[in-house]
């Protein structure tokens, strides 16, 4: 007769076709082997190889010279540009994103919430070449906005504006940065319970006091986490930047692209790996605090 055995033992036995290896398996999670192997081969191994090559000379000897190159122009400039782009783009995404999420929260309609969540999910995944062309059609030299403004006497391109610039990238990135912000900050706003606002009011707190002592302290960690996420997403964006800039702005992802693409002499491959390694370090600095804060704040948000 089959019994409702402890599923702990049973599931492990299942993937070994029977239960012969129970003793061994209870200490080794066999069902996790496929995932481990997959991540090892297609994620950890490539990253490891890349890191190793970043510290190798073309002859294969250990060297720090590739890394030292990162602190010299044009690579130093590229890191400076990419980090600045990340910071400005994060700010341009975070503030409107927060305001929109608050406006939706205030409207309180579930249908609106769901609609906005759907649209945000879609827009947050909109990137790359189609996004670049969409903005070219609106803000490019022959674009709708530009020609409309020209017809009323405002020549933006004549005034020095161009979409193929740092400012242009910030405008285009906002199209996916703002929706990302709406998605990640909304749970924190929903978790700010109206009871807290009421109890603060009952205890005699003014609106300003409530926000200063309750609202902002609770929201600030989430806001910082979202800011870091937006920073990382703009810092590492490749496709949109490649489609929009014509080599006129030094950005790390684009430099890696051209070093790796084989457009240059072979002896610069390891420099490309060093650049990628540098990118990983910058990204880690933003994403590790992001993940840490998110896992901390999600605890009280669920309660």
């Amino acid at each position: 007769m089959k019994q409702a055995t402890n599923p702990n033992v049973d599931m492990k036995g299942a993937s070994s076709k029977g239960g012969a290896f129970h003793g061994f398996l209870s200490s080794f999670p066999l069902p996790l082997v496929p995932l481990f192997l997959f991540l090892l081969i297609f994620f950890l191994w490539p990253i490891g190889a890349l890191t190793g090559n970043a510290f190798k000379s073309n002859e294969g000897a250990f060297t720090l010279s590739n890394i030292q190159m990162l602190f010299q122009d044009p690579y130093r400039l590229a890191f400076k540009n990419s980090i600045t782009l990340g910071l400005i783009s994060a700010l341009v995404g975070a503030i409107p994103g927060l305001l929109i999420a608050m406006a939706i929260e205030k409207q309180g309609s579930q249908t609106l919430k769901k609609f906005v969540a759907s649209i945000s999910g879609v827009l947050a995944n909109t990137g790359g070449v189609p996004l670049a062309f969409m903005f070219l059609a609106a803000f490019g030299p022959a674009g709708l906005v530009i020609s409309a403004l020209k017809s009323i006497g405002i020549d933006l391109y004549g005034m020095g504006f161009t979409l193929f610039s740092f400012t242009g990238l910030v405008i285009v990135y906002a199209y996916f940065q703002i929706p990302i912000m709406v998605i990640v900050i909304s749970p924190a706003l929903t978790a700010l319970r109206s009871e807290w606002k009421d109890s603060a009011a009952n205890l005699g707190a003014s609106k300003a006091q409530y926000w200063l002592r309750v609202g902002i302290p609770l929201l600030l960690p989430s806001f910082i986490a979202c800011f870091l996420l937006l920073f990382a997403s703009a810092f590492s964006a490749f496709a949109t930047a490649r489609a929009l800039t014509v080599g006129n702005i030094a950005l790390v992802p684009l430099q890696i692209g051209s070093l790796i693409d084989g457009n240059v002499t072979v002896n610069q491959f390891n420099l490309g790996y060093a650049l990628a390694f540098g990118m990983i370090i910058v990204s880690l600095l933003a994403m590790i605090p992001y993940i840490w804060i998110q896992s901390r704040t999600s605890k009280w948000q669920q309660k």
Partner: protein
Amino acid sequence: MATEMKNLGSKIILLVTGIFIFFPLYAATEFSMRNGAEKTHGLNAYRWIFQQSGFAENLAITARITVLAVVLNLLIMVPTVTWLHLSGQRYKRLIEILTILPLIIPVVALATGAQLALPSILENTVYELSFMYVVVAMPYTYRALDIGLSGHPLATLTNAARNLGASWIRVLMNVIVPTIRPSIFAALFLMVALSLGEFTLAQLLHWTTFPVWVTNASQQNIIGATALAVGSLFFAWLLLFGFTFFGGKNSNTVQEEA
């Protein structure tokens, strides 16, 4: 009066947002329907798309990559997440950390590493992209499945099926998969959306997929390229919106039934 003002404020914010979202799309649609230098509109640029030699061929390549990515993703993730929920709880924290790692590494950097060190059998086939896409999508697909499984008494269902004599494969296929179908669809759609639009890995690993072809084609015909952009955006959006709006609804109803 004060609350009315505030509601007005938030309505204005939402209106401005709406304009910011839809205006570029409108502009792109208008631009893509221009007939060259004349001030007329038509569908010439859309006809141009289908006349291009690489169109069908590259779309087919991307479709095949996508199918393989979806299959790989489900084969690896569904049994793993199910096991974690049924009896591997103590490994959950570890897997959560492992699956979020791809989010930390910029795709450009991952592509650079992949160019260096992928298994040699995969190096010369475009399907290496499918494997990489599964990795890149993992932070999202894992979470989609994890959330879906959390809402169900899987252990009870599984024990019931096992007591009635079902094999583990049968439990997985006939009990678990139907129960968590909405989250499987969620993972599937995330994978499809990523795979259809992915450019960075394809470009840096030197494969011509549909998005890469679109970029190359755009260099000859700017209006045609905009038409392609509008077309692919609408297609991706339809897919994603359909999934998030209706998919979400489905998963709620199922949870209520369970």
